[in-house]
């Protein structure tokens, strides 16, 4: 294949991918614009990681193309700086001066060596020392990147939304209109003014409203003006790292085996056997169940009655009593002692069996649960006692073989009988008469009822065609 044909073929393949494979070009606008973050050459040159950190910024800042300045500094003291455009000095600033970057953006070199770069259309006021603050840059609009030299006093970037305070670090601050999504509805997007802070190196303190947030290298956050309290991405810290441990609440119910001083031993009985637990009661409160009731909030109607518990002490705990021990981690938080079962009889909410009728399991009674089954289908064959019935369903057919033994065979007639239902209502139903095995002809519809595997009766239905036109036709 010649190169032209090969290229044409490749183009055809891609087009078929697009047309038949429904591959549409993705909309990359947002991703591209988000990546146009401030990547000043000095950041990239000296701290390669910075660019990556800034790329993480959720919103774009802008890109400067300001050359490294060559001008002398230090003529106006610390509260001053030089504004450069494309590396050329355009003005010198002193305390309180305002400047606008215009269409090209600008770089500001402060006298302490801090380097600031602003996007096009940024408005800045430069403020001198005040208290612990060596310099405040008031950002009225636009966005700026700050590489602040370390000093004894702090450096501040103030906006109408909040204030960013640092000692020495690299970060960007931008004032933008940010899309804010309300609730789960993705379409409900609202535009709110926001201050976007992205930290490249070190950490910064952000004051918004009455709250202070600490952002460290690699973190970025948009602080909305509307709320004053934005969501901060909290780094995931494990319990171990926090030095914390989740409080584990545990309850153990059982019968008191012994109490020796503050040491309580209870036996917990379960299906898989019994287990003995020993607790050190310490100063844990002991609550004794009374036969009185109290109304507490809860339940469907907001209120419910429950047994009242009175304050007791460890000496009230006796062998054989039912108790529930609640512990938080390893310390006992409370012990509830319940009334002996017999004392609860007759009371409200009695859970016990009536006197003289102790609870006995089916196994103990030697009883077996009665399993009644019905199989409906067509007779396949009937040889001697063996009745084969084919049950047809959506998922296929299944053949059942029954041992007829002496099971009664009842044959449907075309007559009806009136029966009384469970609720006293009367209804008509097809009458069945006693039949015999000769009625069990192949192809006839039957319902075989078994009780614990033994046939109790076989209902034989009339062929379908004979039922047509009859009373109660289905």
């Amino acid at each position, binding site marked *: 294949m010649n*190169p*032209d*044909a090969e*290229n*044409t*073929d*490749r*183009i*055809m*393949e*891609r*087009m*078929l*991918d*697009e*047309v*038949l*494979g*429904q*591959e549409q*070009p*993705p*909309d*990359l*606008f947002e*991703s*591209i*614009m988000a*990546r*146009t973050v401030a990547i000043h050459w000095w950041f990239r040159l000296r701290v390669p990681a910075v660019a990556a950190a800034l790329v993480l910024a959720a919103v*774009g800042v*802008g*890109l400067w*193309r300001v050359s490294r300045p060559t001008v002398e500094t230090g003529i106006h003291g610390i509260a001053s700086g030089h504004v450069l455009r494309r590396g050329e000095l355009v003005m010198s600033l002193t305390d309180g001066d305002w400047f606008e970057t215009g*269409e090209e953006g600008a770089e500001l070199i402060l006298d302490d060596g801090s380097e600031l770069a602003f996007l*096009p259309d940024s408005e800045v006021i430069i403020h001198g020392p005040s208290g612990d603050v060596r310099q405040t840059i008031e950002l009225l609009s636009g966005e700026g990147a700050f590489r602040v030299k370390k000093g004894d006093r702090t450096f501040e970037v103030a906006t109408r939304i909040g204030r960013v305070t640092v000692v020495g670090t690299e970060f960007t601050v931008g004032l933008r209109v940010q899309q804010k999504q309300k609730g789960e509805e993705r379409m409900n997007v609202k535009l709110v003014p926001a201050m976007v802070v992205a930290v490249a190196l070190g950490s910064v303190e952000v004051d918004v409203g009455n709250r202070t947030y600490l952002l460290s290298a690699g973190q970025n956050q948009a602080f909305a003006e509307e709320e004053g309290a934005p969501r901060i991405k909290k780094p995931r810290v494990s319990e171990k790292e926090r030095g914390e441990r989740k409080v584990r609440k545990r309850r153990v119910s059982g019968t008191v085996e012994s109490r020796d001083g503050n040491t309580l031993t209870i036996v917990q009985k379960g299906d898989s056997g019994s287990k003995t637990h020993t607790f050190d009661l310490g100063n844990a409160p002991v609550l004794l169940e009374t036969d009185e009731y109290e109304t507490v909030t809860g339940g469907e109607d907001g209120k419910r009655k429950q047994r009242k518990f009175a304050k007791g002490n460890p000496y009230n705990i006796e062998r054989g009593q039912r108790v529930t021990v609640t512990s938080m981690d390893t310390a006992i938080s409370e012990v509830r002692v319940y009334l002996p079962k017999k004392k609860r009889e007759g009371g409200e909410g009695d859970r016990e069996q009536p006197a003289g009728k102790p609870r006995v399991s089916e196994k103990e009674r030697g009883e077996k649960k009665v399993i009644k089954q019905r199989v409906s289908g067509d007779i396949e064959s009937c040889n001697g006692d063996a009745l084969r019935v084919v049950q047809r369903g959506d998922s296929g057919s299944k053949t059942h073989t029954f041992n007829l033994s002496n099971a009664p065979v009842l044959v449907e007639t075309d007559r009806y009988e009136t029966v009384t239902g469970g609720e006293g209502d009367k209804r008509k139903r097809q009458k069945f008469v006693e039949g015999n095995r000769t009625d069990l002809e192949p192809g006839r519809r039957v319902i075989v009822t078994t009780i614990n595997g033994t046939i109790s009766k076989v209902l034989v239905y009339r062929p379908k065609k004979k039922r047509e036109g009859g009373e109660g036709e289905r």
Partner: protein
Amino acid sequence: MKRHTLETLVRRHQAEIYRYMRYMGASPADAADLVQEAFLAAFRGKTEPDLSDDRGCAAWLRGIARNMFLRHWRRGKRNRVVVNSELVEAAENTWSDWFLRDGDGFETVEALERCLEKLPDKQRSALDMRYRDRESRSEMSELLKMTENGVKSLLRRIRAGLAECIEQRLAKGLSP
């Protein structure tokens, strides 16, 4: 480049550049990456394009994207597709022949859709198996009761026929 220039360029040409990258042989994910890189490179560069010259802007962006693509393939030596600058140049020429007349390639795609409608059933179902249902050649050979080479030849023949059909349609305009 100013930010609003970039915004305009991205809005106007991103689909075309993506398509171009795909036609050059980049995977969908690679194509998306390369498109972003190409626009960012344009943004960082010193050229201030003339937004009134759409075709010039497209050609300029394609050039950047093409270089990105070549660099990308040269870096990834383990890539299965062998790409060299001559091949890419040839691809660019073919692509220009096909797409320059309608800029973003939408007319060409539309022409393909019309040509697909005229395909015989057997050919259409073979294309559906391959490009819509993503069947492998071996699966197709079982379904179509052909050898794998037969399937390969069949698909190539169909694609060549479609290419010819598209050429004719574009030459005539898109009238049915």
